[in-house]
């Protein structure tokens, strides 16, 4: 049985790592999904969710104060929901449902970050009268709030996703093989979106071509 307190704790650390501390990229969907799966006893399920969510997140860059989806906590929620609902073997219907949920939920996480940043502003203004030496207290309070926010987003999202998937999975009526093929095409498309990050096809055509040749060669060698 999934322990949602454990999911909340993982989500809290993942959310903290995204921006507050220490930004070591434990919050990347690939890592967050796989580690969540491993802690819940299903590392390959976590890897599957994390890999696909990572492909969708490659192009999202946290530049400036722009709003962006929080994919780490959404991946923790999706992985926990998948582990809670899906059997030990691959369940394509449940996988699609939790991934679709995560791609919507990552915007809820992003909005909660905006709310937290507004709350931080108030926290700092409210404490203007107290000695500057109390700055550590204000800063650590803000980090504590971020942990709680992320824990609620991850565990709350996981519980909702699990409830939705549990209700909807019996309705799923697409062929598992076809479902996985569509998922694979979507994943490949999202990996293609990494190319513009590095300057685009035209600007990096030689490096890209060399990579393609190396990849085909490695695939042939690896069988």
């Amino acid at each position, binding site marked *: 049985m999934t322990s949602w307190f454990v999911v909340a704790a993982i989500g809290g650390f993942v959310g903290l790592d995204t921006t507050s501390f220490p930004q070591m990229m434990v919050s990347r969907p690939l890592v967050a999904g796989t580690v969540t799966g491993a802690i819940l006893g299903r590392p390959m399920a976590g890897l599957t969710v994390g890999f696909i969510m990572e492909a969708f997140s490659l192009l999202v*860059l946290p530049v400036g104060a722009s709003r962006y989806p929080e994919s780490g906590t959404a991946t923790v929620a999706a992985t926990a929901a998948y582990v809670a609902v899906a059997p030990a073997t691959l369940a394509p219907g449940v996988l699609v449902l939790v991934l*679709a949920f995560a791609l919507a939920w990552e915007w809820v996480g992003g909005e909660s970050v905006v709310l937290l940043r507004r709350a*931080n502003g108030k926290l700092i203004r409210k404490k203007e009268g107290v000695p500057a030496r109390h700055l550590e207290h204000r800063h650590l309070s803000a980090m504590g709030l971020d942990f709680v926010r992320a824990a609620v987003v991850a565990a709350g999202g996981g519980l909702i996703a699990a409830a939705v998937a549990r209700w909807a999975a019996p309705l799923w009526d697409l062929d598992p093989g076809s479902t996985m093929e569509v998922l694979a095409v979507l994943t490949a498309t999202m990996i293609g979106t990494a190319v513009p990050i590095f300057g685009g096809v035209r600007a990096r055509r030689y490096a890209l071509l060399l990579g393609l040749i190396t990849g085909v060669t490695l695939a042939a060698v690896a069988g």
Partner: protein
Amino acid sequence: MIGAGVQAAVVLRALAIQGSWNYETLTGTGFGFAILPALRALHTDPEALDAAIRRHERAFNSHPYLAPLALGAVIHMEAAGEDPAVIDRFKAALRGSLGTLGDQLVWAGVRPLCLLLALALILLGASWWAAIVVFLCLYNAVHLGLMVWGFRVGLAEGRGVAERLRQTPLSRLRPQIMAAGAFMAGLVIALVVTRGVAAVGEPGPVWTGLALIGVVGGAVWGRNARRAGVAAMMALALVGLLAGALG
């Protein structure tokens, strides 16, 4: 100037510089939090310490991994007894360039490059933990290396850090990182199309053709392709449920 213990404390606290990010001071409070051990060492008078903290918790922003460069330089200037107004102007001048450089080098360079390497390892059959460990070690070697290097340079150069930054190969490294990233993107694309996503299954000819079209679309349309991909995932979920409900 300041002892090794204080220096270590500042760099460690710099890992949490974005902990109280807000729309008014941005990472200003975090900057104050990180520089506090050095200010305590430099200002023994409580009133002078309070005044110094107030100055350093004002608005500031930079890429978090390059913030230690600003921290080191400001500590150097504080220790040299520079005019606070000069220090404020220096911080304001530095924040834009540190932000842009970090965004280009790390967020749009090293990070996606390391992630693609991890995806490639998984597609080549490496165990999940090996791919994760390689990614975290490689990425954080750059992350922590950049922070420690920046702090040392800032502490040694003080106000001259901007000139030193221009002489370092950091900004000149960008084209190489971009080329390496494009190479890794090509490699992962080839592995996805020829072998299929490891956990998904074996690619058939129809799948391979569709995946190729998808990859080209993703590479050409970027953000729009991502939006379309998210919409397609939602549509797939809806179709799967409708098929069951109606059928």
